[in-house]
C-alpha cells in the first residue's frame, strides 16, 4: 500500500488577486513506504509548495492528499495526525530553534505529541544519537552551538517525532562537503534503522543520484519520475529544463560528444571510472 497518494493536486497562491500564481497544477504522485525519493527542480518549480501539502500546512486549491488511504484534510484530528506522521524539515531549519536547552528543543515535537516523559527522554536521546549530538550538549543553549550542530539539532527535533515519512528541504544547503556527506549518511542510516521513508528536496545531483527514485519538477508538474539511471539517461531533457547533470554524467556527455563510445546512463564517478577503464583496457578509446 502506498504511504502517500496525491491526486489532482492544484495550488494557486493569492487566488482572486492580481498576484495570483499557480504553483502546482493537477499533480499526481504516489510514494511507497520505505523508499528514498529525491525531488529536484528549479527554484519556483513548486517543490516547496508540494512538500507543504504533505503535512497539511497548505490547503490545496483542488485535489486530495491521502496518507495510508485517508484524506489528511478530512478533519482537524486528521491534519494533526498528518503533522506527526509526516516530519518536514524546512530549509535552514536552525532558525527554528528556540528553547533554552538543546534537550528541550529536541523534545518540543514529542511534547506536542503529549507523550509520557520517559518516552520523550528516550526519543530525544535516540534522535540526538542518530544525528551525532553528544549528551554533553544537551544542557547548552541551542543558539550557542556551531552552525553544523544547530542544523543537526533542528533535524533531531523532527526525528524525535519518529515520522513515517521524513521530508527534508535542502538539508545540506550551506554545509561543507564533509558535513554534507556526514549528514546524508546519518539520514540514510536513520531511514534504515526505522524503515521509514525519506523525501529529499535537493539541487545537488550527487545527492539525488543516491536515492532510489528521482522526481523532477518543472512549472508545477512532475516531468520525470524514475530511478536515477532512467532520469539521468534523459540528459537532453534535463538540460533543456535548465537542470544540472551530476559531474560524472556531464563528463560522460562531453566525452560522447567528442566521439568516445561510452555506455549510456553514466551518472556516478564509480560508473564513469569503470567505463573509462574498460575503454582503456580495450585500448580503442580516444583518450
Amino acid at each position, binding site marked *: 500500500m502506498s504511504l502517500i497518494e496525491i491526486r489532482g493536486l492544484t495550488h494557486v497562491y493569492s487566488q482572486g488577486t492580481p498576484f495570483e500564481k499557480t504553483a502546482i497544477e493537477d499533480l499526481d504522485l504516489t510514494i511507497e513506504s520505505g523508499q528514498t525519493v529525491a525531488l529536484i527542480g528549479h527554484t519556483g518549480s513548486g517543490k516547496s509548495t508540494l512538500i507543504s501539502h504533505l503535512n497539511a500546512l497548505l490547503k490545496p486549491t483542488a485535489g486530495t492528499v491521502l496518507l495510508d488511504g485517508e484524506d489528511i484534510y478530512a478533519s482537524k484530528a486528521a491534519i494533526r495526525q498528518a503533522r506527526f506522521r509526516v516530519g518536514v524539515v524546512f530549509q535552514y531549519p536552525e*532558525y*527554528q530553534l528556540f528553547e533554552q536547552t538543546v534537550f528541550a528543543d529536541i523534545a*518540543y515535537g514529542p511534547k*506536542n505529541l503529549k507523550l509520557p516523559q520517559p518516552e520523550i527522554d528516550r526519543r530525544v536521546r535516540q534522535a540526538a544519537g542518530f544525528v551525532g549530538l553528544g549528551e554533553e550538549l544537551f544542557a547548552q543553549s541551542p543558539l550557542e552551538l556551531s552552525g553544523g550542530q544547530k542544523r543537526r539539532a533542528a533535524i533531531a527535533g523532527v526525528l524525535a517525532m519518529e515520522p513515517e515519512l521524513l521530508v527534508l528541504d535542502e538539508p545540506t544547503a550551506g554545509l561543507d562537503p564533509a558535513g554534507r556527506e556526514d549528514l546524508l549518511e546519518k539520514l540514510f542510516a536513520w531511514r534504515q534503522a526505522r524503515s521509514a521513508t525519506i523525501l529529499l528536496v535537493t539541487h545537488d545531483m550527487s545527492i539525488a543520484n543516491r536515492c532510489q527514485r528521482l522526481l523532477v519538477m518543472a512549472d508545477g508538474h512532475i516531468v520525470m519520475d524514475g530511478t536515477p539511471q532512467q532520469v539521468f539517461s534523459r540528459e537532453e531533457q534535463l538540460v533543456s529544463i535548465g537542470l544540472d547533470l551530476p559531474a560524472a554524467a556531464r563528463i560522460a556527455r562531453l566525452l560522447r560528444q567528442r566521439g568516445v563510445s561510452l555506455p549510456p546512463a553514466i551518472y556516478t564517478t564509480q560508473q564513469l571510472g569503470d567505463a573509462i577503464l574498460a575503454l582503456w583496457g580495450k585500448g580503442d578509446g580516444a583518450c
Partner: protein
Amino acid sequence: MLKDITLGQYFPGDTPVHRLDPRTKLILTFVYIVAVFLVGSWGGYGLVIAALAAVTAVSRIRPKALLRGMKPLIFIIIFTAVLNLFFTPGEDYLFRWRFIKITYTGVDRAISMVLRVMLLVSGTFLLTYTTSPLAITDGLERLLSPLKKLHVPVYEFSLMMCIALRFIPLLIEETDRIMSAQKARGADLETGTLPERARALLPLLIPLFVSSFRRADELALAMECRCYNGGEGRTRMKQLHMAWQDGAAFLLGALLVAGILLLRRLGI
C-alpha cells in the same frame, strides 16, 4: 496567509497625483487637515468633499479602497457619533424620553464630527495610497532638515524609518516560515486557553527575535563594508525636484482654504 496582509498600502500608478513631489503632498496633506478643522459650514464640507473626490478621481484610486481603509476606524466613528448625538447640551429637542435627549444641535454636531473624522482619514489615506513609503520618508527628511540646526538627528531618523519599512515584508516572510516549521513539529497555535496560546507563541517569537538581531547585525556589517559613515555629505540616488505641477497643487490647496474661509464667513 500572512503574506496577503497589505502594508504601506501604496498603490503604484503614474498619475499627476503620483508624480507630485512627496514634499508637496506632505505639506498639502497637512494643509488639508488644518482646512478640515477650519470648516464652519455645510458648504465648506461640500467643498472639501468635492476636492477629495477630485483628487481621488485624478489619482485613479478606487473609492472602495478609501472606504476599506476606514474599516478599522468604524468603532471610533460610531463612538464619536453617539457621544455627540446624546451628550450635546441644548434646548432644541428633537426627541426626548426620560433621560435620553437628542437635540438638533447634537444631530448637527454628530454629523459634522463624523464627516470630519472620515475626511481626515481618507485624506491621509490618499497620501499613503499615492506615495511610496520610501518617498514619504525622503520627503519628511527634507522637510525636517532645518531641524538639523537644532541637532535633531533627522537623517538618522529617516534612515531608521527606511530600514524599518524595508524589513516589514521580510519579517512577515520569516514569521510565515517559522510558523510552518513549528507547526510541522506539532505546534498548535489555534486552540487552547489564552495563557496556553500566549505560551504557544514563544516558539514563534524567540526565533523571530534571534533572526532580527542577526539581520540587523548583517545589515550593519554590510553598510560598514561599503564605508557608510552617517548622513553628512551623502548624495542621493533620487533627487527630489519641485516642478510647475507642484506650484499648481499649492495654488489649488490655497484656493481650497480660501474657499472654506469664505464659505465660513458667508455661513453657507
